């Protein structure tokens, strides 16, 4: 590590990536002039909607993609240099593993790529398998694992060299709530031990919990960067957080505030990063900032999707609301980024009237921004609206959740 870079684990200088097709046409600016600085022992979150360039940044840091312009310094050197990569742990977007190897063989393979001797490998593999909760499945081929289980192996793989810098691309994707919780705890614990962590995510609650600092990307450009507190601090408001107060205490506070000429509002603490994130994205969209991601067309698609979903749900649970009404409502709301509160509300409430547990699973557990799918096709939507297709999907999902429970 060179001295002058000592304080930054990652530093990029006008890092830019433009994808061009074979003829050099149809350029996609995936990352635009990125100047990222990640300090040692920081947990840094790259946030942004799908297609905002998060993965592309990580790939450039690791030398999987070559920057069109600019450069990246990782741990004071080039991410491709074996001396540097020996200190990096990387979990890709999806756990790309060899399906024919079992869990132990997989970790053994990655361990030997680090040149670890077999004794060290064995003890680390045991510890890691235990940590990710797959010790009992060490001899099952990875191909038979569920997505979440494979993800856990992917994470174990990223930790086998006891890395100094951990680069995690959407670490919680595909994980069940317990796995998600474990990863978050793990990140906090690793940070406490002095590791640097760069993670990308669109799951804001996750990022908010673990990150010291975040950058919000849109269309390959950093829209806002700062520490989580810094970003969420509102200059015109003061927040007082206490334990639950008695009515009497509350009344007293109100009187004090009103005497001072301030406004008083009482509500339980809420997710904040989420609303902040949506704000940023909306601003960027209103500024007609180009994105190669899926956002532009998503407003309509998203609302339609929500409508379609509730439509099918309605049919499924034989609710009284007319489907046509729903569609209309949805169309009215297309300008909004967030799906119509009404529809969402119904979506999340209706299951409670239903006896079947199937649908309860549909209730979004994280209030994440719904535009998740890249450009859903119209006919696919129509397919969705057909009750049969949807029932099947629900059934599948149900099976999956059952599997997970069984695990």
């Amino acid at each position, binding site marked *: 590590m060179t001295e002058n870079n000592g304080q930054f684990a990652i530093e990029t200088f006008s890092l830019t990536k433009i994808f061009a097709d074979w003829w050099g046409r149809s350029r996609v600016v995936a990352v635009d002039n990125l100047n990222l600085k990640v300090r040692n022992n920081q947990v840094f979150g790259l946030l942004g909607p799908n297609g905002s360039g998060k993965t592309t940044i990580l790939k450039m840091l690791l030398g999987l993609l070559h920057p069109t312009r600019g450069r990246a310094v990782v741990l004071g050197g080039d991410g491709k240099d074996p001396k540097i990569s020996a200190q990096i742990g990387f979990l890709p977007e999806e756990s*790309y593993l060899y399906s024919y190897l079992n869990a132990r063989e997989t970790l053994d393979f990655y361990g030997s790529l680090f040149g670890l001797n077999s004794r060290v490998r064995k003890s680390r593999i045991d510890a890691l398998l235990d940590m990710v909760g797959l010790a009992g499945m060490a001899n099952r081929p990875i191909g038979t694992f569920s997505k979440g289980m494979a993800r856990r192996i992917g994470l174990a793989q990223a930790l086998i060299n006891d890395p100094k810098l951990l680069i995690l691309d959407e670490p919680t994707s595909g994980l069940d709530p317990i796995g998600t919780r474990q990863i978050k705890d793990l990140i906090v614990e690793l940070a406490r031990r002095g590791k640097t962590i760069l993670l990308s995510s669109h799951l804001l609650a996750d990022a908010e919990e673990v990150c010291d600092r975040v950058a919000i990307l849109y269309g390959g450009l950093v829209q806002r960067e700062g520490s989580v507190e810094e970003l969420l601090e509102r200059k015109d408001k003061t927040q007082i957080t206490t334990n639950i107060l008695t009515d009497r205490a509350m009344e007293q506070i109100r009187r004090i505030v009103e005497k001072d000429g301030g406004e008083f509002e009482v509500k339980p603490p809420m997710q904040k990063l989420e609303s902040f994130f949506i704000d940023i994205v909306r601003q960027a969209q209103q500024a007609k900032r180009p994105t190669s991601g899926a956002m532009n067309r998503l407003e309509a698609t998203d609302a339609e999707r929500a409508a379609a979903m509730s439509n099918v749900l309605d049919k499924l649970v034989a609710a009284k609301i007319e489907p046509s009404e729903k569609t209309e409502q949805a169309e009215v709301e297309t300008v909004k980024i967030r799906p119509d509160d009404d529809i969402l509300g119904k979506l999340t409430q209706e299951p409670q009237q239903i006896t079947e547990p199937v649908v309860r699973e549909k209730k979004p557990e994280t209030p994440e921004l719904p535009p998740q799918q890249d450009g859903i096709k119209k006919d696919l939507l129509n397919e969705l609206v057909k009750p049969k297709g949807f029932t099947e999907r629900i059934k599948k999902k149900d099976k999956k959740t059952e599997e997970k429970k069984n695990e």
Partner: protein
Amino acid sequence: MSRVWAVAKNSFVSAMRMKTAIVFMLLLIILLPILSITSTGDGTIKGRIQSFISYGLGLTGFLLSILTIIVSCYTLSSDIKHKQIYTVVTKPIRRFELILGKTLGVVLLDTLLLLVFSSIIYALTLQMPRLTKTKGDELVRLNNEFFTARASLKPDIDEQVIETKAQKSYKELQRSGQLNDSRSKQAVMQELKDIARYSMHSAEPGGMVIWEFKNVKPFDSNDNIFVRFKFEASRIPPDKNIYGVWYVGDYRQIKYGQEKMKTPIYAAPRKDVVKTVQEFQVPANAVAADGYLAVVFYNEPMNDSTIIFPQEDGFEVLYRAGNFGLNFVRATLIIFARLVFFAALGVSLSTWLGFPVAVMCSLAVFFTGVINGFIIGSFAYLGENVSLFYKYAVEPMIWLLPKFDQGCNISKYIIDAKLIGTAFFAVTIAGLAVKSAILLVAGFIIFARREIAKVIV
């Protein structure tokens, strides 16, 4: 190195768990014993064994080549396609180590399979005479003509000598004024060269033809050496029989008039029918200590006819220079070197091509190897017009292609019990090694520059 080994092991395991490898193995395991029973050849036991070896080695070489091509093209391109490579190249392994590891994995697979199948073929070949209860004369013949490795000596025509001879006669003609202007010098020289060549292998009545060889190394001086010949005569007697005396031994002893003969010179007076292949044996101790051997044919004057040995198949000396086992091992090693070549080719191509295209290219190389002689011939023909381009662009490319036909047809050596000479063996192996190395280095360079995560659609 441990990293190369880790990659090699992984790619070996992947290939072993790939169904193609199993299918190919089953195919060979079933087909080889069947071949050993069903091969008939010309009906004799020797013919049966020859046709078994021919099909067995041919099939093994062919199937393993195809398997190698498929596996080597698959192992890297599948990692790239299914993105497992992301977690591999981001580890402290250099890209050339990855390429090397992938190739080594395929080579490991080849080693294992070739070892198994060549052993099966070898064992079955040795068993075949026993199973058919061959005995007596046939067994002796089999041992002399099949379970052996004979070196072959053919007259090596020295173009230099012929050229000077022709030049000399040309000057003679010039001096005596026998040249007429209607023919070009080139045409006359060509004719004179033909005459010179012809005269070296022909004997007038009372004349001699002499063949001299160096570096003759019989396996055992108690063996025999075999002189095989065929001649034509300018005047064929009614019974078609020509009389002559053959002398085999160190001719220098006569030429330079040594006091005492160190090695015997054998004389064999014979009477042979024209235009048919004849063979006789003399003890191998006729060969001088330094490997010199001369064979002389003396044309009896009473024949009153000029005897001509055709250039193609007029004369050959065969002698046992090795044993069957060693020859078989050499043949197997040459097949192995070819498989290594294909492993390097497949991996090298898949550093920049997807699986289907890489397989297509490798198969194309394989089949051009099978008809290499034909290709070189046709290019040489074209090449006359574009000689510079041919010399510096086409020729090196053709050189890079492997050769399986003509002199490089390995199973032909085993079938004919012909020794795979040390020099030929070494040159073939080294050539393939150099070609593989060139392909791998090209692969290193391409792969080191490649943007791994770039999606090629």
